[in-house]
């Protein structure tokens, strides 16, 4: 078979298909490269930062080179001390030395003082022997442990931040040990984040299932009206809804005043409803409820009401018919809604930050804390990668159950 211009039909079709594919890829390319540049590269960049350990080798290059041959017994030779003195002096002049001090302080608290104290005195040490002079400046330099720490941090990559993120650390000889008890916060926070997200997901099912069912079974005229009550919060700014809950829940707020007015509680015994766990749970349940109702509703609307009538006429009572006939058909919607709400909940930041106080904050808040206040960016990145991994796994399941193409919005 040949096409009109004489080329074999097979070749001609293959050429047309190739052109089609190229055209499609050409249409996708601008967005693809845009997302790659503005989103994927930053995320990868952040992930690399979680294993980045270049501060010590970067600022103390001579010391790390000298320590490479040291066997870790006793104190390193005079040449290493001389290298350290030169590095600290250079670091003081370039003002980079503070980074090393901070980095070492993450590992052993008190190291900031050691480094900064030595840096202040370094100008006075003009010539060797540097060993005595440095130990004179700060006695930590006479400890094998200090040098072992420097040697351990000479490697430009580390998994130390991931260990920190699960409440572990390297000890002075490089073994993995648990953090001292007062520094163990992250595992508990991960557990709290998962537990609160589960609870919030459960509450959204509890509240979302009945109203989705009601909207799916009412005539379209009424259900469209009710739908507005679901969609209005969905479209309202997150900040507005969080503000609203602060106003509702504070001790002089609407809910407490209402309860006092009814006589449910005494005026001087108003319970604390906001800036704690309860505040986070109530506000987040409200904010995420539409994400449960919408997938449930779209599944329930496809279930013919005749199935329930058939079950009833075959002798099932209302409850049996509902549990054995109706509920199994809604499970796809429940699954989709649950995973959607759960994914959103474990990464939530704004609402817990504003209404969570200290007991109601989640892992995101700690990431933000390390980004903005403690400035331990690598630890923030390690926590972020763990969170990202969890979300990616959940998304994979979501894609298996629902398929991203079937996602409905609004």
């Amino acid at each position: 078979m040949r096409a009109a211009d004489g080329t074999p039909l097979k070749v001609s079709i293959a050429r047309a298909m190739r052109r089609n594919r190229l055209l499609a890829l050409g249409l996708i390319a601008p967005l693809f490269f845009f997302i790659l540049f503005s989103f994927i590269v930053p995320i990868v960049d952040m992930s690399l930062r979680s294993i980045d350990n270049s501060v010590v080798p970067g600022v103390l290059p001579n010391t790390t080179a000298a320590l490479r041959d040291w066997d870790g017994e006793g104190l390193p030779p005079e040449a290493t001390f001389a290298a350290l003195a030169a590095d600290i002096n250079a670091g003081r002049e370039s003002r980079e030395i503070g980074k090393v001090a901070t980095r070492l302080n993450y590992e052993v608290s008190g190291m900031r003082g050691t480094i900064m104290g030595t840096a202040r005195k370094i100008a006075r040490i003009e010539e060797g022997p540097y060993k005595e002079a440095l130990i004179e400046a700060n006695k930590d330099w006479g400890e094998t442990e200090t040098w072992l720490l420097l040697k351990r941090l000479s490697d430009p990559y580390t998994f130390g931040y991931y260990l920190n993120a699960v409440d572990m650390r390297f000890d002075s000889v490089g073994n993995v040990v648990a953090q001292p008890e007062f520094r163990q916060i992250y595992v508990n926070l991960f557990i709290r984040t998962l537990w609160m997200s589960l609870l919030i997901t459960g509450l959204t099912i509890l509240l979302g299932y009945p109203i989705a069912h009601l909207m799916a079974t009412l005539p379209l005229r009424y259900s469209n009206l009710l739908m507005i009550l679901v969609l209005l919060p969905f479209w309202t700014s997150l900040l507005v809804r969080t503000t609203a809950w602060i106003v509702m829940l504070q001790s002089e707020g609407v809910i407490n005043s209402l309860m006092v007015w009814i006589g449910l509680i005494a005026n001087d015994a108003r319970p604390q409803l906001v800036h704690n766990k309860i505040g986070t749970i109530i506000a987040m349940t409200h904010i995420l409820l539409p994400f449960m109702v919408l997938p449930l509703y779209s599944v329930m609307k496809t279930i013919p009401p005749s199935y329930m009538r058939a079950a009833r006429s075959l002798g099932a009572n209302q409850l049996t018919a509902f549990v054995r006939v109706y509920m199994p058909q809604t499970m796809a919607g429940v699954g989709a809604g649950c995973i959607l709400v759960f994914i959103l909940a474990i990464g939530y930041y704004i609402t817990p930050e504003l209404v969570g106080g200290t007991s109601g904050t989640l892992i995101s808040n700690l990431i933000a804390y390390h980004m903005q206040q403690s400035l331990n960016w690598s630890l923030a990145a390690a926590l972020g990668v763990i969170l990202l991994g969890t979300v990616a796994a959940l998304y994979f399941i979501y894609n298996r159950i629902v398929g991203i193409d079937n996602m409905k919005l609004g």
Partner: protein
Amino acid sequence: MALPSYAGPVERIWYYSYRVACGAIFVFLIAPILVVIPLSFNSVPFFTFTPEMLSFDPAGYSLRWYRDFLNNPQWIHSLQNSFIIAIASTILSTTLGTLAALGLSRPYTPYKSVIMGILISPMIVPLIISATGMFFFYTSIGLAQTHLGIILAHTALGTPFVVITVTATLVGFDQSLIRAAQNLGAAPTTVFFRVIMPLILPGVISGGLFAFITSFDEVVVVLFLADFDQRTIPLQMFSGLREQISPTILAVATLLVLISVLLLTTLELLRRRSERLRGLSPQ
């Protein structure tokens, strides 16, 4: 779902208590938003209903916080920033997203699911992680603390919504219409603007509205990327709620509720129109 005539007393009780419970849940959904509105007209700086307000005494109400909002250059500046950033990123993400959705909906597009996964990823990744990554990267290339940086970041966050809504509109799109137009001698641009665009317009507009509200409402990325000059309304509210809380925030919140009502109405009208065009619903 009306109560069947054969329902027994237990079923009746169950039916009415179910209705009451549903009513309570709808109140839970809508009450916080409605409560903010009257409180924003409070004449005293409290976040609660004063006795004057409850007795509908006109002295209990005032426009004080709205005047405060309009006379505060910081709020006005944030409002301008919010609109500039949201409109610019909406235009960018709608254009890029629509093109990509057209490519994704063509038959025989290779690696469809992988590409879709990457394009959708900004919607799935928790905002705090996106913001962290963008902070590092945008700082290193000098885009942090610029309007452009925030616009690009918001464009990335908004495109998944455009891709999803436009792809959904294209599901029922008859690809042979394109071939017919080409057959009749239309140039590719003519095909796009005269044949494809009118048919997918509702999807494009609703995707654009999603992109707009995503940017307009976004605070985490702005928190990490913005300097004082790039403050937006949500960031201003966020820091207001954290530091010195003033009822001006309630006035702003009321205005934002108004905007969301407008958006919701537009979307609903669009949905009705497209359902009517597809003949899905009775007039």
